[in-house]
């Protein structure tokens, strides 16, 4: 009797174990990583998105892996080298040349071909172009936004400026910034500044400097990307203008070279600066830092001021499938889902980021009627991307080093820029 009971229990355990493993085998697990998972608003939005995906794909289980914004390239590089990168991960478009060159991004062209002709027609041409490596698509475009000028209408009014007339040129901008740099509490010390900007060697700096450089008519590199273009008179003029905002006109708060993007947004949220360059993420983040500011009411957006031509920087993110994924078909389903028209619109509604899909950013009333997104969308034709070459991270670090040396007075702007020009040429000549 005891023997029969024992055999029965063993059989039952084996049956359960077999069923469990069968169920597990039937369900595919995917790892999905995104720096947005460290941000409250985005985290909620992504989790909701995954719930929708799970309902539609019950055989796929997606595990979300947050990563810090500054460390994502490091993490994905190390994991890719170890053959353990997440199945799908989110990076800036400017990281793509490096990922492509090291073979860390799977060729998506076969999947796209299976979707039928015209599948990629829904996206703007520039993002698609930047997703390609040797003519083949190796990533899917994500957020597509332009840098615009955000300003605090209440601070404008307090300084005697009309909030419906934001500065259109950089010269006007400087005049506004000077008026907005003031002592608000009467203690004889300036406690509010006209403009907040990054000066640290952190991601996002080049997007804040790009609108200056390009609208002055300068550029980082020559069109063939083989030489530095920072020795042109227009590049020198843009560089000097930017540096002198801090050194000569003092319209930027102290400590600029230590300020990253979040530090500047905090200054903006705390009404220490009246204007910043930002994009779709700016209002929700500023609102989160200081809800009392009523960011969505008080802030307004305007095109980045111009000097000789309208120009601004484009922010483009991308979704990459790891070549190490054991479930490429399922990973493609996830990629398709997060870049679908429905979910791209959700990303905008929840997080205020515009899409690289024409059928979203170009037509959705939610975007066209939004006071911030409509401005960003209007600037897409004037948007430029940074050089998409694998040396770019080293080039921008070298440039920022020289800029910091000019800002803190170690070198004159002319000397600092000349050194940057020389070093960048040496990098490109390797």
């Amino acid at each position, binding site marked *: 009797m005891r023997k029969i009971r024992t055999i029965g229990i063993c059989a039952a355990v084996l049956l359960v174990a077999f069923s469990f493993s069968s169920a597990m085998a039937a369900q595919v697990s995917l790892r999905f990583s995104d720096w947005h998972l460290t941000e409250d608003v985005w985290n909620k939005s992504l989790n909701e998105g995954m719930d929708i995906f799970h309902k539609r794909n019950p055989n796929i289980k997606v595990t979300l892996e947050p990563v810090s914004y500054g460390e994502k390239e490091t993490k994905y590089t190390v994991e890719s080298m170890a053959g353990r990168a997440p199945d799908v991960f989110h990076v800036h478009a400017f990281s793509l040349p490096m990922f492509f060159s090291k073979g860390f991004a799977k060729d998506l062209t076969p999947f796209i071909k299976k979707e039928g002709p015209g599948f990629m027609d829904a996206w703007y041409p520039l993002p698609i172009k930047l997703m390609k490596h040797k003519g083949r698509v190796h990533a899917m475009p994500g957020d597509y936004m332009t840098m615009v000028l955000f300003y605090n209408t209440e601070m404008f009014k307090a300084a005697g400026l009309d909030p419906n007339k934001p500065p259109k040129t950089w010269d006007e901008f400087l005049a506004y910034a000077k008026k907005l740099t003031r002592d608000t509490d009467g203690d004889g010390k300036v406690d509010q500044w006209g403009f907040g900007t990054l*000066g*640290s*060697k952190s991601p996002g700096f080049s997007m804040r400097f790009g609108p200056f450089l390009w609208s002055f008519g300068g550029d980082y590199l020559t069109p063939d990307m083989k030489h530095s273009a920072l020795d042109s008179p227009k590049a020198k003029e843009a560089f000097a203008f930017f540096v002198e905002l801090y050194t000569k006109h003092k319209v930027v708060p102290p*400590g600029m070279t230590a300020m990253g993007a979040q530090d500047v947004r905090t200054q903006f949220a705390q009404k220490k600066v009246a204007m910043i360059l930002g994009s779709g993420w700016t209002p929700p983040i500023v609102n989160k830092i200081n809800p009392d500011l009523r960011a969505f009411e008080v802030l307004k957006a305007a095109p980045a001021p111009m000097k000789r031509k309208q120009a601004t920087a484009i922010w483009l993110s991308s979704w990459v499938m790891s070549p190490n994924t054991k479930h490429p078909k399922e990973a493609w389903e996830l990629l398709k889902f997060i870049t679908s028209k429905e979910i791209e619109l959700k990303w905008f509604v929840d997080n205020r980021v515009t899409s690289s899909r024409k059928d979203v950013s170009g037509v959705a009333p939610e975007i066209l009627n939004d006071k911030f997104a409509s401005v960003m969308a209007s600037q897409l034709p004037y948007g430029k991307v940074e050089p998409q070459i694998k040396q770019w991270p080293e080039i921008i670090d070298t440039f*920022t080093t020289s800029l910091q040396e000019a800002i803190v007075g170690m070198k004159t702007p002319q000397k600092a820029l000349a050194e940057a020009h020389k070093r960048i040429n040496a990098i490109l000549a390797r």
Partner: protein
Amino acid sequence: MKRAIRIKDRHMWVFFVSPGVLLLILVLGFPAITSLSYSIKPEQAGPVSYTLSNYMNLLKDPFFSRTFWNTGIFVFLSVASHMVLGLAVAMVLNTALPAKPLFRLIALLPWVVPDVVAGIIWKWMYNPIYGAINDFLLRIGLINTPVEWLSNPALALFSVILVNLWRGFPFVMLILLAGLQAIPRHLYEAAGIDGASRVQSFFHITIPGLRKMIVVALALDIVWEVRRFGLIQAMTQGGPGVLTEVLSTYTYKQYFQFFRFEYASAIAVVMTVVLLLVSLPYIWMISQEE
């Protein structure tokens, strides 16, 4: 039978030591060899498989020489200040202090804070607009305008070293406290009877008594400070310019931001050689004792 057992006993140590040695080879040896092999590979694929060009480029790189110099200053000042403050606090804690365990805990607290967290906290404290340090100094009238601790070229590196002093002295304090407690009390009593002053006792009893612990603390602290990364990366990322760039942040940049694996490996090898040289007195002392 007796002979068979003797042979077995003589070789048993192999089985006990092997797992640890294998682990060391895997965790330390494999990455070291991989780094070394990367360091002698060319950055661009070509006809040459192995080259010393990465090391030659180090010699020509003005950023590297500046970084090396910064590292020297950072390590020298950090270690020196750790030794001074660590010894001072250890001597205080070695006295008959009321609530000594509490003071020991307070003294240890900076050491348990992770590097990056310490860097972020102090970066906020140094903030020219919101920072507690400027606010305090302005209120007591010591300064009239906020100081840009991390942006001023004359102050940036020393501001980082100050944070490192706060963060790192407890480790040295612990080692020296252990050494102080091992010095026999009767030596101080005898010196006192012979008319020696406190300063004389310090230089003729305390310092000689702490000699070995000082070498241990120096060697370990130098190694750790050469490798210090999180604190500097969180506070300044090597800026302004390259004023706070040290070997560890420069290596990180080359590896993980610029993806120059071969060049970064060469820097890592140079760092390792420097650390080995620094560790030689410590290794010699340990081997002498054995």
